[in-house]
């Protein structure tokens, strides 16, 4: 009915958070006198880049899911835009948003969290290997 609205709303929030984090990172890097091209070597993948992965999954998924809802006639081009609201089934729609919609948002976020953990572990191992090489040299 309108489950895509939940991950879509999360996408708006995470996009704003990404912009704020990006701004803060830029400020910190300026203060630490780190050149933009050296970032990946010194601090690994920036958190704003990692948040970008979540944004892409949420925006892409919501857009394609919204298209599916248009396909099935659940989203219409005229006010109130949702067939469920027009036909007085708002309660059912809200229930679906609260169950399927929230599960979608949670699962996408969990998959992203997994990606962040794996990438952090790989970066940490890489840094440790480089440190060991330097000590041996």
């Amino acid at each position: 009915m309108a489950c895509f609205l939940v991950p879509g709303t999360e996408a708006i929030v995470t996009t704003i958070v990404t912009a704020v984090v990006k701004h803060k990172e830029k400020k910190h890097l300026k203060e630490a006198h780190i050149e933009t091209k050296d970032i990946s070597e010194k601090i690994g993948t920036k958190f704003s880049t990692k948040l970008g992965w979540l944004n892409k999954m949420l925006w892409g998924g919501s857009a394609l899911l919204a298209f599916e809802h248009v396909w099935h006639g659940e989203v219409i081009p005229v006010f109130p835009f949702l067939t469920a609201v027009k036909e007085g089934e708002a309660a059912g729609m809200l229930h679906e948003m609260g169950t399927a919609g929230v599960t979608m948002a949670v699962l996408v976020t969990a998959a992203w969290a997994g990606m962040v953990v794996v990438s952090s572990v790989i970066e940490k191992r890489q840094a440790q290997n480089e440190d060991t090489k330097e000590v041996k040299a």
Partner: protein
Amino acid sequence: MTLLITVFAAIVATLIWYKKTPDNSMRYGTLALMYWGASIMWFVDAIFEYAELGAEFFTPEAADMLNDSYLGLCVVALGLIIWMISLFIKDPKGVIKKALLKKGA
């Protein structure tokens, strides 16, 4: 079928990204993440549908399957269009910029 087609699109996009990394000029990662996001969302949809229908979920009518396949292909095409537009806007290789400047000169 929509879920299955999107998952295959996500796998293909991910393999292309893996083959081309670290060259990120075509932004295949964006395409892969978009398809994975949609796949996860349809997977959740499938779980809820399975909870409602039970085993019947795995034996859809031929007409429904055809409609879902058609939808899946349209979704893949829409994903490619969104990716292409974002690629042209970001223009990491500067191709659009070069072409426009050449025309202007």
